[in-house]
């Protein structure tokens, strides 16, 4: 059955956050979004929050703790390693792609240039995860 998702969006760029919010505001289904500006902020949210997100959407280029570092930290944490994480990035860098897959990700999305295409891909990702079962924390 389709459910509403709790999503942690880890993204430092203001306009990227606006793009994401504009996209989901036009969806037929409501999702809860928690925003974190970088890996450090995201970790703090995860460490102190009793209810963990269903899904993490993660940018790679960020200040302080970057996406790859963040991913490696949560993949090595028994409480957090089960959370599906989808990379949202502008880089299709071969090294990034293989490092992320090696650490364990649930998707790697290279953000398309055009906003309509971007919206479409975000919508597709959320549509898919809506129908998934998650670990109950």
């Amino acid at each position, binding site marked *: 059955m389709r459910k509403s998702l709790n999503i942690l969006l880890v993204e430092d760029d203001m*306009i990227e956050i*606006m*793009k994401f919010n504009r996209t989901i505001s036009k969806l037929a289904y409501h999702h809860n979004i928690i925003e974190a500006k970088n890996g450090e902020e995201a970790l703090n949210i995860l460490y102190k929050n009793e209810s963990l997100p269903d899904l993490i959407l993660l940018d790679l280029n960020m200040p302080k703790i970057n996406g790859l570092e963040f991913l490696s930290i949560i993949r090595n944490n028994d409480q957090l390693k089960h959370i599906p994480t989808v990379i949202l990035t502008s*880089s299709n*860098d*071969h090294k990034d792609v293989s490092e992320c897959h090696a650490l364990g990700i649930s998707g790697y999305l290279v953000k398309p*240039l055009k*906003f309509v295409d*971007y919206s479409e891909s975000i919508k597709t990702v959320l549509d898919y995860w809506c129908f998934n079962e998650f670990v109950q924390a």
Partner: protein
Amino acid sequence: MHQKEELLLKLQHQNEQLNDYAHLVSHDLKSSIRSLSALLSWVKEDCGEKIGEESVRNLNLMEEKIEKMDQFLEDIINYSEIGATSLKSNNIDLNKKLVKIKDSIHIPKNISVVVKGNLPVLKADARRLRQVLENLISNAINFNNKEVGLVEIAVEETEDLYTFSIQDNGPGIPKEYHEKIFNTFTTLGYQEKATGMGLSIVKRVLDLYGGEIWLESEVTKGSTFYFTIPKK
């Protein structure tokens, strides 16, 4: 001897830094361009009616420029990546590979892309070889100016090398440009969307293989690009 080695190491290091730098700058610019593109499309969506037809047309032109800048940065990233990682050795069935490449390129209805004969299976870096073929084939398609366009791909095998040929019936290239077109950022101005990076990417990959590239061309009749990959 010692000094020479030191110098070589230093140069190698500088070269790597330069590649990293190109990579980093391009990525940063690419994300800025993504933001610009989104903001522009929102202005169009939210105020299209208020600002009038002419302004919408100008916004569309801005969008086109942004698209070109994005392609340009993508090419710079691709270019700077070549040589940064070592070449892989994949078994490639060229017949299958070309079907895949043809699927990934936009081919207009008036142009046919034909693979001649049965192609060999060879060992090469699949991604790099794809870059070479993709660039040459899409050039042959994009620059084609004939009502009925034809692009023919063939491979000949000799004892120590493969010679690929990509033949088109496009506008042809005057002799004086036959070397220049392989330089970075050189375009012949036939096409609005050209970045001038495609052939330099091709050349850079082939340099890594010790392969060569050259062309035969007759203006208004068409061009044939040849390149070789040694069997080692």
